[in-house]
Every structure is written in C-alpha cells, then in structure tokens.
C-alpha cells in the first residue's frame, strides 16, 4: 500500500499578520481515490487502516521558516513533551491504526511553529482523515488472477 503524503503549504507572513488560516494554509495530498477540499485548510484525505501517512510543511516564502511541532487527533490533548528535539529535526509520519472504523472521519490539528523573532505557535484545526470503507483494496494489493 503506498503511503499517503500530505503537503502543507504555509504563507507564514500572512499568518503572522493575523490572517485567517483559511487564507494562509493550503493542504494537498496524493491520494488516488479522491480527497475533499484539496488546497484548503479543511482537506479531508481518504486513508486505509495500516496505511502510512506522512505530513510535510513548506513555507511559501523560503526565507520565513515554519515547522510542524505537533499533530493531534480528535481533540486529543498533546502531552507536554520532555526533552523535545528541535522542531526542524522532527518529521511526522505514522500508520493509520487497524481499529479505525470504515467511514469515520478523524479531524486533526496541526501546530505550526514559525521561525520569526517571536517563534509563535499557531494551531490549524480543520483537516481530517477519512477512513476508507474497504480495507486495503488498493491497486497494488488486489490479487491478480490468471485469465481464464
């Protein structure tokens, strides 16, 4: 099963100026079975249980760094970490648990850390993962039968 890549593009300057996330954060994924609200902060990405999901963040202006410092699901509070590594050393990926019920939506919140003088953290709520109704029937996991 190919991983699902979610790319987060951030207009950091606009965010720091107080513009709403809807105008400053743009999410895309490479799902081949259709996403909802692609290019917005409300992207809904279809995912299969056991599928690897990767997030990466890119500032629109390369001179204004931004990093993902946390991702939390369904309102789950993020435990305060100890010995947290530098945000630029973090990468965010994980397997969708097999217990996810088909058809359910799991919203998540991205926490962005900007590299400006203030090092502000900004939470972006809105994107979600949508659990596919059928598990694991991707193009490369469907068994190939010999022609009759």
């Amino acid at each position, binding site marked *: 099963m190919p991983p699902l890549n979610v790319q987060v593009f951030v207009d950091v300057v606009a965010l720091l100026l107080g513009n709403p996330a809807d105008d400053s954060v743009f999410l895309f994924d490479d799902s081949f*079975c*259709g996403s909802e609200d692609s290019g917005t902060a409300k992207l*809904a990405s*279809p995912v299969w249980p056991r599928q*690897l*999901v990767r997030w990466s963040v890119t500032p629109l202006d*390369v*001179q204004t*760094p931004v990093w*993902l*410092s*946390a*991702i*939390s*699901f*369904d309102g*789950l509070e993020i435990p305060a*970490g100890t010995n947290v*590594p*530098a945000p*630029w*050393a*973090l*990468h*965010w*990926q*994980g*397997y*969708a*648990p097999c*217990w*996810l019920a*088909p*058809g*359910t*939506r*799991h*919203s998540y919140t991205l926490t962005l850390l900007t*590299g*400006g*003088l203030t*090092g502000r953290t900004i939470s972006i709520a809105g994107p*979600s*993962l*949508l659990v*596919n*109704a059928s598990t694991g029937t991707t193009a490369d996991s469907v068994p190939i039968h010999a022609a009759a």
Partner: protein
Amino acid sequence: MQISIVTVIDIVTALKEGTLDGNAYVIDNTGPFDSPAGPRVTNVPGVYNADGSQAAEAVLNWIPVGVGGLPTTLPRSYRQLFISKPWNDRKGDLRLRVRQHNKVRSYAAPLLSAAGEVLKSDNVAAAASVSPVVTRICGPAVEQGVLYPAQYGSPDLLTDGWYWSATVDTAKVGCHDYAMEVALYRPVQENGDTVWEPQFFTLKCGLQITSAPGVNGFTGSFAPGLLPVPTCSTVAAGEAI
C-alpha cells in the same frame, strides 16, 4: 532550510580605512535556532537520518548591503522605473559607469540614494549608495568540502545578474572558517569621466554546524508507529468514500 546572511557595510568608512574590520556586520535569520557562536558566525542546524545520512539541506544566501543603500525590501521594480528608454534618452549622463573585468560598463539603472533620490554619477559622495557586491566565497570551509558555493541568477543589476549561494555538508559538525570577498566601488577620474572602480575586501566569517537526529514527532524515535488516534474515538461519522 534557507539561511540569509546579510552583510551590512559602512562603505564610506571601509573605503577610507581600507578594511572591513569594524566596518562590516554580519547578521542572519538563524537567531531563533541557537545563540550566536560569535561575531560573524552563522549557525547552521543540520539533521541526520538513522543511517547517518543528511536528512535536510541547508542553503546559505549572501546579501551585502550598504548602510546608506536602498532598503533591500524595496521592490526591484522600483529601480526599473528609471531604466525605461525615454528616461535613458534624457538622463543618460546619470547612469553609473562601472569597471568590471577590465571593461567599463554602464549600470543600467541610475544610482539612487537611500531616500530614493537620483544621484549624479560623478557625485563622489555617492559611494555610500553604490551597492557592495560579493565576488567570491572561499577559505578553509570551501577547501575542506564543508561549503559548496555557486552563483545563481539574480535580477540585481549591479551584480551582472548573479548572486552567491551555497549548500552545506551538515555532517561536518563544528566551527568552520570561510572568507567573503566583497567589492566596494570608489570613483576615479578617467579621461574627464567618472568611473567607479571596484576595490576588493576580504571578511573572515564562520559557520557553526550542529546536527540533530531527525526523529518522528509521534514516537520520538527514528521509526514511525501508529498514529495517535484515540481508540475510544466516537467521532461524528463522515460519509463513506
């Protein structure tokens, strides 16, 4: 990670004293990453994978500015306002004549003061407004394969369309010295004309390279685990796909 290294130069004093020492200040956008390791030293935070390979690239960009120069935040189009053909026809004598590679070339745009006023090309007091140009990045860090400098295209008119950038081998942790060669321009009289000649200066600088393991934000280790979706999650059902 893109790192901007801005070299602010007191051009008039540097030309007068013949040195950049005490007349040039190096600042960059890596302040939030770490406390500065020293004056004219740039922090370069690196990241490595479990196998030790480099996980993220670090790119340096050098931007020299004069204390009395135009703000770098000014749109490039501002200067372009002055290089339209009718303007050149009327104000051709205002164009700066600069010696580059033993040839005298006319600067395509007029010289502007920090206030945006057009300066006459024979105004010797205009030296502070002629942009400094980085001409070379060299030194031990380059020779030892820490720094890989190259020139890239730029819309800057005085630099002949180039600027210096470099990638860094962040596996080479520690402090590394390099030198920035900068050209400042001084006016000289030549056959009754004012020609701006480059005078070359060297500024010793350094890189403080650190490297951290690129760990998974969810697990705190190199390897990924399960996404932390609550097991008792009774989220509102979305539409099945």
